[in-house]
């Protein structure tokens, strides 16, 4: 019984309107008529009711007879042939006169002549045009009710199967826009036991879909019953505002360095070759400086005063105790503009601004870098690098491993390995591998080392160990979201942006 009460509480207003009608009417069109709803509305209500196993919907194919335009007129005004017959008398009369008297069209009148002739009700003369008079048979049937007339008295649409006099139906069907026979779906419902049960309930209580401010103001909510919803069904999707998933990961990375006591470095994307390469002791004929790796930009940079010191270090080591690269340093080359190839350029600039009393100091950057490559599934021309420097007179190689180990631990990698490598600006140089806990293998994530005195002394003014690293993050970030095609990081597919889960580390 509670079940029934529960169903009653959840009934939609349409269902409430339809249900009482089902006591008398079980066919769609008559339900609609009696419930004062459209057939579409009734169908919706019936389907909901069927889902609740209150009714069962049956649909069957059937033929039905419909009254067409002329049929409707004749039903009201009488059949034209009857009216024609009534306009006749025992002497021949011209067709025009009869047509006018019976208020028919010329076309109808001509058809009537043929019809009545077949019934032996008229006699035709061809003298002086067409003229017609009534016969004895005509007089006899004039005041009777004809089967055709009787048929038109039915309620339409009428089921074809129910029509007894098929010959009449077929005859009327041949006439112009009188009746038609159409194939139709007949929808009927039967009440389930539960439905019978339900009809015993009082469905008349007014239920309310929505609580309105008016009800609250007037206090009328006290008399209302609120329709229960189906709280278990799914609802249409809405979308939250969201940060780009890549930025979420980068924020997390930034926070690690902040927690480790590092200051953030930022700076320009367009840099001179001086800052990006020469200040880092990359010889001007180094293979990596070849055009294909670097995006060059039109224009020439202004050089800071310390460029001459850097030039000297390249040429002969200057006051660094180094032999230098021993070649003629080109001022033109160092003024070239490029898109920064690494965030290490920020470290160089930071060193040039530091003073002795600022030490020890630690800096980091999470920034975009550029490589002149065509896009494909494993290459981007813009990507992120995580940069760090520790400027500390007591820093050494073990500390470098320490900082990186701490960082990667927080990134979810328990072990870090260093391998010898080579970069023109660090010595010792090392490649940093982390142990992948699932793949059970070492993966390479970037370079690190201690800046060479040839880098540090001209920029800082004195020699001091500077631990430095530049790590690629695309691989780790992509892997977190199971991105295998690296281009998917910046595809900006709105569905992907909306549905990507959060960075939950």
């Amino acid at each position, binding site marked *: 019984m509670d079940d029934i009460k529960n169903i009653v509480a959840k009934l939609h207003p349409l269902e409430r309107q339809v249900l009482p009608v089902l006591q008398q009417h079980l066919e769609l069109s008559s339900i609609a008529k009696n419930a004062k709803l459209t057939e579409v509305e009734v169908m919706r209500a019936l389907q909901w009711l069927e889902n609740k196993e209150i009714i069962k919907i049956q649909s069957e194919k059937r033929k039905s007879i419909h009254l067409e335009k002329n049929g409707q007129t004749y039903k009201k005004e009488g059949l034209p042939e009857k009216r024609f017959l009534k306009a006749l008398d025992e002497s021949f009369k011209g067709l025009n006169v009869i047509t006018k008297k019976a208020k028919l069209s010329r076309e109808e009148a001509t058809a009537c002549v043929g019809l009545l002739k077949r019934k032996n009700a008229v006699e035709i003369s061809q003298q002086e045009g067409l003229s017609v008079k009534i016969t004895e048979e005509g007089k006899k049937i004039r005041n009777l009710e004809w089967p055709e007339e009787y048929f038109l008295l039915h309620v339409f649409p009428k089921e074809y199967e129910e029509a007894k006099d098929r010959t009449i139906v077929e005859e009327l069907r041949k006439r112009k826009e009188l009746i038609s026979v159409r194939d139709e779906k007949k929808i009927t419902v039967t009440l389930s036991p539960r439905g019978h049960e339900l009809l015993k309930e009082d469905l008349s209580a007014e239920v309310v879909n929505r609580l309105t401010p008016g009800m609250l103001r007037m206090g009328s909510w006290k008399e209302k019953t609120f329709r229960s919803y189906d709280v278990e069904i799914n609802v249409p999707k809405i*979308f*939250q505002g*969201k*940060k*780009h998933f890549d*930025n979420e990961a980068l924020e997390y990375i930034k926070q690690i*360095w902040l927690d480790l006591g590092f*200051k*953030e470095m*930022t700076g*320009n*994307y*367009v840099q*001179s070759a001086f800052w990006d390469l020469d200040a880092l002791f990359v010889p001007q*004929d180094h*293979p990596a400086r070849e055009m294909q790796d670097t*995006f*060059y*930009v*039109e*224009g*020439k940079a*202004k050089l800071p005063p310390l460029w001459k010191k850097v030039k000297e270090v390249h040429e002969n*080591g200057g006051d660094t*105790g*180094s032999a230098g*690269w*021993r*070649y003629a340093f080109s001022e033109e080359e160092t003024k070239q*503009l490029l898109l920064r190839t690494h965030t290490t350029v920020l470290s160089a600039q930071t060193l040039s601004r530091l003073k002795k009393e600022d030490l*020890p100091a630690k800096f980091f950057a999470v920034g*975009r870098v550029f490589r*002149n490559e065509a896009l494909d599934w494993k290459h981007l*021309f*813009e990507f992120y690098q995580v940069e760090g420097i520790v400027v500390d007179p*007591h820093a*050494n190689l*073990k*500390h470098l491993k320490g*900082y*990186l180990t*701490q960082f990667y631990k927080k990134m979810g990698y328990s072990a*870090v390995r*260093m*391998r*010898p*490598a*080579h970069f023109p600006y660090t*010595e*010792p*140089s*090392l490649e940093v591998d982390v142990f992948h806990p699932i793949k059970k293998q070492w993966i390479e994530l970037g370079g690190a080392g*201690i800046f060479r*005195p040839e880098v540090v002394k001209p920029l800082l003014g004195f020699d001091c*160990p500077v631990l430095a690293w530049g790590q690629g993050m695309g691989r780790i970030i992509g892997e977190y979201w199971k991105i295998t095609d690296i281009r998917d990081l*910046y595809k*900006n*597919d*709105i569905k992907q942006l*909306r549905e990507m889960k959060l960075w939950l580390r």
Partner: protein
Amino acid sequence: MPTITINKQVFEQLVGKILPLEELKDRISMLGTDLEKIENNEITVEIFPNRPDMLSEQGFARAFSSFIGIKTGLQKYHVKESGCKVIVDSSVTMRPYTACAIVKNLTLDDERIRQIMQIQEKLATTHGRNRKKSAYGIYPLENISFPINYIAHDPKNIKFKPLGFETEVCAAAVPELHPKGKAYKHLTEGWKEYPFFIDAKNKVMCMLPFTNSDDTGKVDEKTKNVFVECTGTDLRNVEVALNMITTALADMGGEIYSVEVVYSDKMVITPKLQPKKMLVDLSYINRLLGLLLKDTEIAVLFERMGYGWENGSVLIPAYRADILHQVDLAEDIAIAYGYENFKETIPNVATIGEEDPFEVFARKIREVLVGLRLLETKNYHLSTKEDLVEKMQIGENKTLPLKNALGEHNHLRNWIIPNLLRVLTDNQHHQYPQNLFEIGRTFVANKKTETGIEEKEHLAVMLCHEKVDFTEIRQILDALFSALGLEYAVKEMEHPSFIRGRIGMICCRNQELGLIGEFAPSVLASWGLLMPAVGFELDLEMLFEIVKGKEK
């Protein structure tokens, strides 16, 4: 970076020990060479550019054998005098230096000839900077007669048979005809004369920097004794190259003989294989590496890396080109000590972390916009002129082009809105509303900056759905300024990308921050976007300055 391929048996023979595969792999990468693969009988390793001396099987095996403790310490190479002369003519100004040697009693086979060719080729691309700095040639000794002249000639007057050719050609045709001529002729731009090696019987040995002569410069299995020349623009580079080649040949079993190189003003005997002495600052190395090595310990480690040790000084082999400073020695000590043996340590030093203030501001802006249910996008800074200018129907072009982009993205973006229109255009199959924002950098010309380019962080917001209008985008802007506690105004203006009468300038504290409006249907049509869109873009750094000024 260059890789070399080594025959595993040859390698093991040179090293003097066969290591299990896993250990071999591990030791190769811990030496400071990147193992690419070991397949069948071949080892492929990448050699870093600071160690060109390892670009030969012999050089690599020598370093490896020492590293794993088989043949440690300084390898001594004996140089005998040959008395042969190479006379350098003052005309070779374009490539003024040469260093030469003779190596005798070699036993060559196909494998060794391949090795000799590999040394020359790999050295020329890396150490020789694609022959720009230096190039090398090896000749069977029996084909040539001393003294040899290193001299520049007008190529029209010289005929010889370049390597691989059937007949003699005029030297002037070599840059156009010979494969190496075509490959390196860019190095000789503006040359009227080319340097040649010509022997005492007036036979052309080679034309630099292109090719040897097929008659005199072709080494085969019958060759026992060879003449080696290195030429270039940098004397030290040329000499080290010769040292690397001759020591590799010596490791194949050859005997090295010196050659007298006679300049107009001096005479130099090459190769110079005596080691260079360098005083070691032990405390510097210990400090940098965080170690406490003693004199005796460091001597052992140096010997592991092929150095000699003599009373606090290190003896650097003559084939090493990369020792510029004590710090280079420190790295070799670290490698010998083993990178895997350094224990990670976090020093007890207090420093204070600090986020960049603009980044903090940008993060807060992001939070406001996310609260307004906008979706953040992230586009590249490189775009196309078509997107930035043409599709936006802007007359004048103020975008900055790149000189050499490989892909189609070859302009720096000067605003973000075109990026967002592209995102909307590409996402028309997804559900609306599509309301987006992006914070990112834009680039405009500005002579006052160091690079002539000013970089500004912008904020762009874009709303796109069936019923979107100016009011809705103004509401977003209102919410943003109200979150910052700032008043602002929108002033009428015109802009070709927007509908006339529905575009305004965003102004705050007498500064023009950006623009806001409804996009012109012709612009939407040029993108192929079938949904109305409205948006604004403003200079976020300028806004930051205003906020900073106000909060002070």
